[in-house]
């Protein structure tokens, strides 16, 4: 990759340690994707906020970095481990709370917007088509590319952070025109619900490279689209899909039918019941909270149900009264965190969790260490409320 004189000087350490580190990262990711140069980006979305995921070394790294470094483009951040407004109802470790506070403060000190959300597309209007951004959260990158018309690769926590600091990203892969996919996945399931779309996403992530076409699908609702993005981001490297029924240009066609779905389902579903319920990974948007409030009318959950949404969306939902019915039904509405790797779910007193999120299922099983009962939202409400 060719660097300008200025970029080379920064890489050599002439502009301080933070910029040197940032350019070291961009050089590695540029080489990894055969980029010829760096280009400006307009928005970085950072991952690596939850203390459960980044640990002591991550906390320390960010604390040191924040001492003299500011982001230079609009930057938003992923969820933390928990909601600071709801620590007393959960058995949280004091040390965890302090470390999480430090991480939060480091990001704020660097000038990022304290969104603590995996759904920045539900909070901000998206910039104009083809705008170059740098999104680390995988579901957000896939959403941005596939449904938002933006351009990003599936950035890592460090490549997006380097982009936030420098305002640049390597010009490669999905950032360029004409990197069209050769694979089409033919959706064979009739009337798919959001869980089916999550499973389709997980399947697509496994078989596709960096982008994929999906045929046999008419425009699904936002909940299903987000489930598709979440599932896809969890299982592979694919960062873009396109709904398209013309597959004659595809050299490879793969079916996603009952058999393929059951195989993924059996991999992720390990229990026929859950001790508690989580809704939201990705965090729920305004439309989903509105739907949920309608579906819960007159009903109450028999067990703890955690509803995750961003703080911005919760504010909007509260002012529109969507939250009244959800609160009344006994849900905990939680912001700044989500199902994935939250310490709010303690494997010492929880054996299994019911969720409709394929992404959530993967991390509940593999990172939190609990069994998972996967079912669509309509079935969760049917089975778990009175």
């Amino acid at each position, binding site marked *: 990759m060719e660097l300008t004189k200025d970029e080379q000087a920064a890489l050599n350490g002439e502009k301080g340690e933070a910029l040197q580190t940032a350019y070291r990262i961009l050089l*590695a990711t540029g080489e990894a994707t055969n980029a010829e140069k760096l280009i400006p980006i307009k928005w970085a979305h950072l991952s690596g906020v939850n203390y459960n*995921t980044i640990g002591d070394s991550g906390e320390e*790294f960010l604390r040191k970095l924040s001492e003299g470094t500011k982001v230079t483009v609009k930057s938003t951040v992923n969820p933390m481990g928990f909601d600071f407004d709801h620590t007393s109802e959960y058995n949280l470790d004091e040390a965890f709370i302090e470390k999480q506070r430090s991480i939060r403060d480091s990001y704020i000190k660097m000038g990022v917007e304290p969104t603590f959300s995996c759904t920045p597309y539900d909070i901000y209007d998206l910039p104009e088509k083809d705008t170059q951004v740098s999104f680390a959260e995988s579901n957000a990158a896939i959403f941005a590319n596939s449904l938002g018309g933006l351009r990003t690769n*599936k950035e890592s926590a460090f490549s*997006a952070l380097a982009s936030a600091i420098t305002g640049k990203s390597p010009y490669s892969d999905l950032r360029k025109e004409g990197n069209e996919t050769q694979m089409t996945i033919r959706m064979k399931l009739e009337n798919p619900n959001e869980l089916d779309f999550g499973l389709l996403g997980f399947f697509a992530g496994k078989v596709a490279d960096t982008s994929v076409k999906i045929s046999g699908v008419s425009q699904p609702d936002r909940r299903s689209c987000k489930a598709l993005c979440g599932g896809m981001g969890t299982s592979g490297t694919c960062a873009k899909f396109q709904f398209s029924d013309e597959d004659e240009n595809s050299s490879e066609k793969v079916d996603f039918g009952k058999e393929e779905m059951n195989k993924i389902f059996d991999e992720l579903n390990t229990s026929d019941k859950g001790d508690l319920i989580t809704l939201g990974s990705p965090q729920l948007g305004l439309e989903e909270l509105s739907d949920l409030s309608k579906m819960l009318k007159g009903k109450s959950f028999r067990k703890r149900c955690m509803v995750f949404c961003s703080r911005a969306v919760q504010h909007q939902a509260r002012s529109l009264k969507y939250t009244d019915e959800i609160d009344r039904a006994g849900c905990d509405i939680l912001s700044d965190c989500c199902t994935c790797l939250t310490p709010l779910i303690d494997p010492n007193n929880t054996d299994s969790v019911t969720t409709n999120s394929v992404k959530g299922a993967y991390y509940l099983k593999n990172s939190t260490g609990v069994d998972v009962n996967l079912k669509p939202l309509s079935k969760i409400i049917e089975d778990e409320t009175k």
Partner: protein
Amino acid sequence: MSKIIVQGKAKGVILKTTNPINFLGAVDKNTGVIHDQKYDIFKKSIKNTVLVFPHGIGSSVGAYTIYSLKSNNAAPVAMICQKADLTVASGCALANIPMIIISKDEFDSIENGKYIQIDTESEEILN
């Protein structure tokens, strides 16, 4: 034909898997042990190995896992992949873990358990 992603020198015993690795979901950041039973290197530790795997997958936060492994002295001494992905490339860049990309043929012929030396400055990168 090798491509250098992160420069450096290393030597160690090869731990090879044909499974792409989700660092956040599958690797214990304190010990380097693989804790996802779907991997063919389940229960094995990647600590101090030359880790050979197709590519990284899944969460972007896996880059922090690689950095944590290094800070906890539980990281591989080098990584060799068949395809580069941004999570592994950036994690190795920050953690100063030499990383190279090799062709499919080279990948297929690398033997698990063999001792290997890597020097990205040398003409023969792998020895």
